[in-house]
């Protein structure tokens, strides 16, 4: 398939890996921010191509994984209302709230529907005028413009039974929180490819200029990730800290101004709580008052959920999502916590680090030194 297969060539992967090995003669701790990158790294077996000096640390770029339990509880309360149809992306359906999940509620008779796009939710609202169709809006800046467009289209159509429950979060404030956190030691970042398609690279300048860490925005095919690692290794060897774009075929330094305008029209920043990181200032998006008629928070202000619902003690998602621990550090991965019986969101979401580790068979700590071939 064009723009896919060319970026998966094995001979190129070997050439990139050889060049990385030549450059990475000292330890380099690189965080891949985005859950899609975590998944790509394991799906294509990239760690086995990299020298032992490179440690890939998985960051909190999985919007499903960082959704706190009480947000899921809110969606559940709405779903239980007989006048509501709760629509959601598939990966949120099995995320545990404090006592249930949207999937379980569906089993108990709630009208919960999986959708691929906010446009599907819009269509359902058109088809079901007697129900309030609420769209559980999750995702970073990649996805928020699409939710914004859904609200604008609802307004243009005069649709009064459509609303979104906004749980969008912003990536650059999260990066700052990671950089300020003392227990994660990082040398550079593999930057999120599709968030950057929207926001461009200017929002990351503080990473290089104030914190002195290089950041390379990477695509999601294996050759993209390898080339980004190569570009980071080169920067570290040359003592540079810059924001670079590896994914030049879709990421422009200015991002997508049309999408940013739509996002800014419908949403405004707010404080948001992230699972495992607590409150990160101005890291969330809420619907502007102008669009209150399409904002589930404004339409249902009295939803009572316990805030700060803690994860079960054994669940290490909080530390894993920040990169402070690896999935194999968790005592319950693969035993109590599996994709069929997830305890934490890192296992439920296909982009979660734990789901990736489980799927690709990395449940045990690997030796840091390569076994001598003899």
């Amino acid at each position: 398939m064009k723009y896919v297969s060319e970026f998966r060539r094995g001979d190129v992967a070997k050439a990139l890996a050889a060049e990385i090995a030549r450059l990475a003669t000292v330890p380099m701790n690189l965080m891949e921010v985005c859950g899609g990158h975590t998944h790509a790294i394991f799906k294509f077996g990239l760690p086995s191509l990299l020298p032992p000096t490179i440690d890939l640390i998985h960051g909190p770029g999985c919007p499903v994984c960082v959704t706190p339990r009480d947000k899921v509880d809110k969606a559940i309360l709405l779903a239980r209302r007989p006048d509501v149809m709760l629509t959601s992306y598939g990966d949120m359906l099995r995320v545990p709230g404090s006592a249930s999940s949207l999937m379980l509620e569906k089993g108990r008779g709630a009208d919960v529907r999986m959708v691929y796009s906010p446009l599907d939710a819009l269509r359902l609202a058109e088809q079901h005028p007697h129900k309030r169709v609420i769209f559980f809006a999750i995702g970073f800046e990649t996805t928020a413009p699409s939710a914004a467009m859904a609200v604008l289209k609802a307004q243009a159509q005069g649709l009064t039974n459509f609303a979104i429950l906004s749980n969008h979060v912003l990536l650059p404030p999260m990066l700052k929180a990671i950089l300020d956190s003392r227990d994660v030691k990082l040398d550079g970042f593999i930057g999120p490819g599709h968030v950057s398609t929207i926001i461009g690279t200017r929002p990351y300048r503080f990473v290089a200029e104030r914190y002195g860490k290089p950041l390379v925005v990477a695509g999601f095919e294996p050759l993209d990730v390898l080339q980004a690692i190569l570009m980071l290794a080169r920067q570290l060897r040359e003592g540079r800290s810059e924001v670079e774009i590896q994914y030049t075929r879709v990421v422009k330094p200015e991002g997508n101004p049309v999408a940013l305008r739509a996002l800014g029209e419908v949403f405004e920043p707010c404080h948001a709580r992230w699972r495992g990181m607590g409150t990160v200032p101005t890291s969330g998006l809420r619907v502007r008052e102008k669009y209150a008629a399409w904002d589930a928070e404004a339409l249902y202000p009295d939803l009572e959920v316990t805030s700060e619902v803690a994860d079960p003690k054994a669940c290490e998602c909080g530390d894993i999502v920040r990169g402070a621990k690896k999935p194999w550090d968790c005592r319950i991965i693969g035993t109590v916590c599996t994709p069929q019986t997830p305890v934490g969101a890192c296992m439920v979401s296909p982009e979660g680090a734990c789901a990736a580790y489980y799927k690709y068979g990395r449940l045990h700590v690997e030796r840091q030194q390569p076994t001598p071939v003899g």
Partner: protein
Amino acid sequence: MCLSVPARVLAVHDAQWATVDVGGTSKRIAIDLVEGVQAGDYVLLHVGFALQKIDEAEAESLLALFDEMVQAEDQALAASPVTPSPPGRGPG
């Protein structure tokens, strides 16, 4: 959430809608977020919306760079008398 796929534009219906081919399936998608979309363009498709056009020139340029790297690596291996051991941790 980061999941986006390349899609080829088959037809543009108006400023808001187009039909694309994604992996052999045709699909109606929203193009409100990208200006100047034309039939034959490739776009990045995410939750039913085009997010950006794929810059073919940039893609070609990167693939050409990859070809050069492979050639350089092949030449380096041919010139070296000892087969180097592969980098990495072994079976991962």
